[in-house]
């Protein structure tokens, strides 16, 4: 590759004559009014740089780029990307020459450009030797921290953590000092950036330094005026807790305050991370502190917070004793199951089954099963779905019999729901239910339903039903299908409504992939061939399509004797589409 590049470079240099002309051409292109021409010119920056060579790039191209930076955001982003490709060209000891352009780009208002520039700066920094870091990166950070516009300060927040990791102690102290100043900046967006980066900085610091230097800043940010700053205290808390441990008083104070924050958004964020926090704490702290706070969140005034905590019930339950769960959590769960907000009930339904393995059979029967049964009768379909989805957790512990009756009732209700999307969803759950119920119960109670779905008003439901039969057949086997499904499909093929006849055709093709050759030859193909005389052209050309698929599954003799004659007959059909598909199918058969 290098060989090819050098050839190209030589050619460009020859074509361009002098290096100066190359830069002149580039400069002219950057002057044009047309944005796309400028964008194209920038995309070829590395070619220009290669033609100029390392020295001319450093001395002329990069300063020139500095002058053209008040351009469209798209072009600026492209410049940032291209500059990152120039590291090899300028030489690894000279990568600092790329920094001025990137520094300007890192102060741009548009976030995408700014973030990219910061990313490139960090990647250059990582490859630099320590001396360059001291003489170039640190001054860069200093300038950004003291910049007039807040965007540079945002970028400084993002650069400080990685730079910190590679600095000596003296520099580390200065960087922490900078960081603290940024965290106290009067502009909320700078403080937000600092709050966001705090956890990254924590990752590079040792425990003592964190406790001494960073905890006060962490505390202040978590008590900031702005919600958007405080909310980041949640992630900072887990980051600090993982290093410092759970016995630090200052840390516990802040976490307590965040749990009690006036803004529901902060409490919501805490609810989402409460399980992470729980894991980081020792069992005593979990019981005494985290659990109490979690219980409050489950009873929070804002529905979103209750829903978020409902999703974490089993995660918290894992960290505490069974008695504690029964005593403390289950009473609140009883209240949540009748919460007036359906999203809260839905969230509860999605998590409640996971409690079963933690509590054991007896408690499960006593406490969880009644809960589940009640939720199965909820008026909001999503609640019922979420229960059904996680049923295997419970049935693994207690078996299906306890639930079967109510379950079946819920399923039948959902299967007849006026909303077709609800009906499709329950069809998707049917294979799971089949495996839970076992063949006998399933056949008795649900197989009729599966067939009925084939006759649904909505096409998507009929399609889902066909595919469902495919999965069930795979589960229960071909003999089962022979007894229960195939006769019904044969019936459907004679239905007076052509849409249902189509459905039977479709089901045939989905089933053929898994049934044996006797069924295919004995039942399926004759069924299909029969429909070749159907009055509706749609059926006839679907017959061609189906025969095409089926021909791959039988031996060539059969194809010759049964399939081809049928297709040949359809070649003479009065409908154009039928003739087309017939010829297509015949082509495939002949191959």
């Amino acid at each position, binding site marked *: 590759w290098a060989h090819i590049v050098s050839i190209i470079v030589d050619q460009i240099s020859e074509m361009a004559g*002098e290096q*100066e*002309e190359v*830069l*002149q051409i580039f*400069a*002219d292109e950057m*002057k044009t009014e047309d944005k796309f021409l400028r964008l194209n010119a920038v995309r070829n920056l590395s070619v220009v740089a290669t033609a100029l060579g390392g020295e001319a790039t450093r001395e*002329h191209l990069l300063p*020139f780029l500095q*002058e*053209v930076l*008040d351009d469209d955001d798209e072009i600026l982003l492209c410049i940032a990307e291209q500059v990152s490709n120039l590291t090899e060209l300028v030489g690894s000891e000279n990568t600092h020459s790329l920094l001025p352009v990137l520094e300007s780009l890192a*102060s*741009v*208002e548009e*976030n995408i450009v700014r973030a990219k520039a910061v990313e490139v700066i960090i990647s250059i920094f990582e490859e630099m030797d320590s001396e360059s870091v001291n003489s170039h990166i640190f001054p860069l950070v200093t300038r950004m921290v003291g910049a007039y*516009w*807040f*965007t540079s300060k945002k970028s400084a927040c993002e650069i400080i953590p990685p730079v910190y990791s590679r600095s000596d102690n003296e520099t580390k102290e200065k960087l922490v000092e900078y960081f603290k100043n940024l965290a106290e900046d009067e*502009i*909320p*967006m700078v403080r*937000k950036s600092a709050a966001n980066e705090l956890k990254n900085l924590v990752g590079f610091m040792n425990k003592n330094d964190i406790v001494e230097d960073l905890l006060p800043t962490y505390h202040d940010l978590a008590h900031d*005026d*702005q*919600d*958007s700053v405080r909310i980041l205290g949640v992630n900072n808390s887990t980051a600090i807790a993982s290093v410092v441990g759970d016995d630090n008083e200052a840390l516990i104070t802040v976490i307590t305050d965040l749990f009690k924050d*006036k*803004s*529901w*958004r902060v409490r919501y964020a805490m609810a989402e991370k409460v399980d992470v926090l729980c894991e980081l704490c020792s069992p005593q702290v979990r019981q005494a502190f985290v659990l109490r706070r979690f219980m409050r969140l489950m009873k929070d*005034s*804002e*529905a*979103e917070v209750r829903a978020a905590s409902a999703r974490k019930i089993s995660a918290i339950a894992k960290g505490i004793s069974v008695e504690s769960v029964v005593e403390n959590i289950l009473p609140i769960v009883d209240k949540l199951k009748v919460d007036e907000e359906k999203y809260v009930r839905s969230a509860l339904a999605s998590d409640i089954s996971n409690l079963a393995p933690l509590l054991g059979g007896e408690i499960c029967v006593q406490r969880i099963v009644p809960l589940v049964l009640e939720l199965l009768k909820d008026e909001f379909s999503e609640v019922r779905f979420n229960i059904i989805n996680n049923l295997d957790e419970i049935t693994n512990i207690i078996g299906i019999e306890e639930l079967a009756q109510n379950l079946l009732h819920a399923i039948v209700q959902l299967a007849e729901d006026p909303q077709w999307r609800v009906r499709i969803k329950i069809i998707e759950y049917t294979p799971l239910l089949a495996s839970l119920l076992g063949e006998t119960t399933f056949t008795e109670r649900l197989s009729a339903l599966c067939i009925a779905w084939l006759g649904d008003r909505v096409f998507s439901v009929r399609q889902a039903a066909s595919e469902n039969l495919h999965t069930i057949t795979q589960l229960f086997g071909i003999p089962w299908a022979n007894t229960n499904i195939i006769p019904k499909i044969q019936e459907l093929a004679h239905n007076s409504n052509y849409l249902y006849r189509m459905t039977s055709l479709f089901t045939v093709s989905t089933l053929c992939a898994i049934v044996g050759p006797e069924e295919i030859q004995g039942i399926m193909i004759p069924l299909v061939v029969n429909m070749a005389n159907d009055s509706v052209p749609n059926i006839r050309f679907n017959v061609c399509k189906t025969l095409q698929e089926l021909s791959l599954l039988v031996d060539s003799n059969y194809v010759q004797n049964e399939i081809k004659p049928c297709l040949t007959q359809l070649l003479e059909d009065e409908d154009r589409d039928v003739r087309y598909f017939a010829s297509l199918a015949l082509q495939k058969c002949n191959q």
Partner: protein
Amino acid sequence: DGMTEEWNSRQLLANYQTKTKTITAVTFSDDGDLLASGDSDGFVTLYQASKTNQAYEHYHSFSSHQTTFDYLKSINIFSAIKQIRFLPKHTTSDYLLSTNEKTIKLWKIGQKNIKRNNNTEPDSLFPKVSTQSKEIYSEEAKTYKMAHEYDIHSIDILTDGESFLSADDLSINLWNFESSQAFNVTNTIPDVVENTQEVITCTTTHPTHNSLFIWGTSTGCVNLGDLRSSSIVDSPNSVYKGKIIAQSESFFSEILSSLSSVAFSEDGNTILARDYLSLHLWDIRKRKKPIDSILLFNHYRPHLCSLYVDNSIFDPFSCSFGKDDDTLITGSYNNNLVFYNRNTSAQDSLYVGTDPEGESGEIDTENKVLQMYLHKQKNVLATAGSNILSVFFSEH
């Protein structure tokens, strides 16, 4: 009567001759360096404070919104700018939000250097770039649309600099500048829309507190909402509702109590609300009774019938606190801007029109001051009277 004397230096910035083009929005940037005006044709015009003398110079104009046709409902969506708000300035470019009745747009106003390549050194062919002049350009940075069923009437920016509110008749939405998705924070739509008793007429955010905002309604209520308390602020956290100063309940009582604008004092502890005839002052900590209700426009009363017939009774006058919280300013007819001093109960008028007339008993509803904006630090008052835009400078 000395309240308006200080505003003696006036600069006329725009005087539209056609009656159809009116100025519909006026606002200053945070530092007062830029003044923006929006008109009924959807244009936004920017004026910049001169560095040398006390004046504003034309800086840039651009077409922010055009009239479009809603095919689904078969109605026009007019281009008239309802409100403009500047974002706090954080880089060399300026950003403002401007909205018509359906779509809010974020505009970036920047300066581009027009560059020339000067090859001044004969022995070096490397181009040197020099800046000849600056060109001001406006670019639509983001569009926030399809979030309002009814007509938008107010927008305001929250103090975190990252989000803003937009309000229509029955709902208020919260937006984040970066994303194009709105979150509904207040929804007063009743179960059956036809049963609507009360609509939202104006909204503004608290000057310092990030989570507080107020909205005024057509029944004369000011509602305070707190974004921290719940995800949907269905019932306001505080309601300020007083009795209408009405000698008798009349046909117009309900219309007269509709609030046309609400404003916060600088420290955010006092709320000012304007209904058709009066100004009301509330302390946000006292909900039962307003601090004061000032009947400023009792002289409209005899003319209410004709004011109702030509729809003037629905004119959305704005109001604000003066340079200190004791002075209140609001617009009125005959191109007059009315000042009121709370301590002395004195009243004064500043004429903002172009033809000073004699004392006329007639209420001239064609010339009215609907929009005004006072910038305290820069001591400038901008007023828009239908088709006249002026700035007044204070001698203090």
